[in-house]
């Protein structure tokens, strides 16, 4: 995480983004109004426009903030896991478990992911923002793929499983899990269960028997 913002302006900006993220995840980008954000943050419209002259500036800032936060959480949990284990398989599984615990502690209700929410409203975004979104997803696959390669050097995987697919799966279990949670219970439950399944899948793929 990027630490607490210091100046008053930065605090207001952070508060607006927090409110906007919750609104976009619960009812979508189109239904999120500038007026409700202004009311929520207790500022004037000109105060809002100072931070975000256009709604698309808000979309960009939301995406950037989400990418930065998730990237920083991932970097941290995997750094801790790498420090705790010599074996790359153990380290990756431990990192995923730590990541799951961050999720479980996240009071983010209702469950959901900003990137998925915006993906289902892509046509409302500018091209540059769609690229930003795609870039974030690609970066996560690539990072997982690099970890899987390191594991495969030490533990040859089952021939039947492709490492690219396995890397993608880290993204799909989280995104799919959120959808199911959102539809079924409005609680973050399936994401954690599916991530646990993914960890046991990794174990079986790289350590048969």
């Amino acid at each position, binding site marked *: 995480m990027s630490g607490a913002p210091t100046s008053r302006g930065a605090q207001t900006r952070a508060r607006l983004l927090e409110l906007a993220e919750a609104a976009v995840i619960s*009812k979508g980008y189109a239904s999120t109004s500038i007026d409700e954000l202004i009311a929520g943050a207790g500022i004037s419209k000109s105060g809002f426009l100072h931070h975000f002259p256009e709604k698309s500036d808000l979309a960009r800032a939301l995406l950037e903030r989400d990418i930065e936060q998730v990237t920083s959480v991932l970097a941290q949990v995997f750094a801790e896991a790498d420090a705790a284990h010599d074996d790359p398989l153990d380290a990756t599984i431990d990192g995923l478990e730590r990541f799951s615990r961050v999720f479980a502690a996240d009071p983010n209700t209702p469950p959901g992911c900003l990137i998925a929410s915006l993906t289902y409203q892509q046509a409302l975004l500018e091209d540059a923002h769609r690229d930003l979104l795609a870039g974030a997803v690609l970066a996560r696959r690539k990072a997982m793929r690099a970890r899987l390669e390191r594991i495969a050097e030490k533990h040859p995987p089952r021939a039947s499983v492709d490492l690219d697919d396995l890397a993608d799966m880290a993204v799909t279990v989280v*995104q799919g899990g959120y*959808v199911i949670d959102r539809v079924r219970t409005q609680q973050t439950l399936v994401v954690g*269960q599916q991530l646990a399944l993914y960890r046991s899948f990794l174990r079986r793929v790289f350590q048969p028997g």
Partner: protein
Amino acid sequence: MPITGVTKGVTTRERIMDGAEAAILRQGFAATSIEEVIAAAEITKSGFFYHFKDKHELAKALLERYIDHDTRIMGELFAKTDALIEDPLHNYLAFLKLLSEVMDDLPDRHPGCIVAAYCYQDQIFSREIRELSREAMLRWRNLFRSRLDLIAQRYTPTIPVDLDVLADLTLTLVEGGIILDKAIEGRFLARQILLAREFVKLVFQPA
């Protein structure tokens, strides 16, 4: 679970629904106006209201059609595997292979799942619509679960696994695969379903 069908010789009602569905999957429900749907279907406003009394009735009809369609596709795939394969494990593995092929055979990338599109705007939908989605998601999980129960009667899992969670894996990878495909404009959905298949194999087949 989301599979798109091909519609030929469509009625006006279906044409309205097809256009609305495509628009909602691109930009969401709130941003999709009745005017836009009317223009896409090349009908008049009164033509629209003849079929749907308001936008929410359209939303409900789209969701019901989507759920019915996917339920039917899965029923048809299981009817095929049930006719050919008695062993429950091989039957389920064949089903997942066929499901993956259905996704692979789509002419374009999967356009998106209506249930998922709605869930990310659920605050603007009625309780009735949210309940339809929830029931469908549970019914599909239970369908897979009943198959896994049959497998577990004959095969001992090689790792400890909750069968409900394993049943959810297929739904999870389908929903997640669609989001991945939409986000990076690729086609990975079919391959993700094959991973679900691979996992079921690893769980129940001794190495």
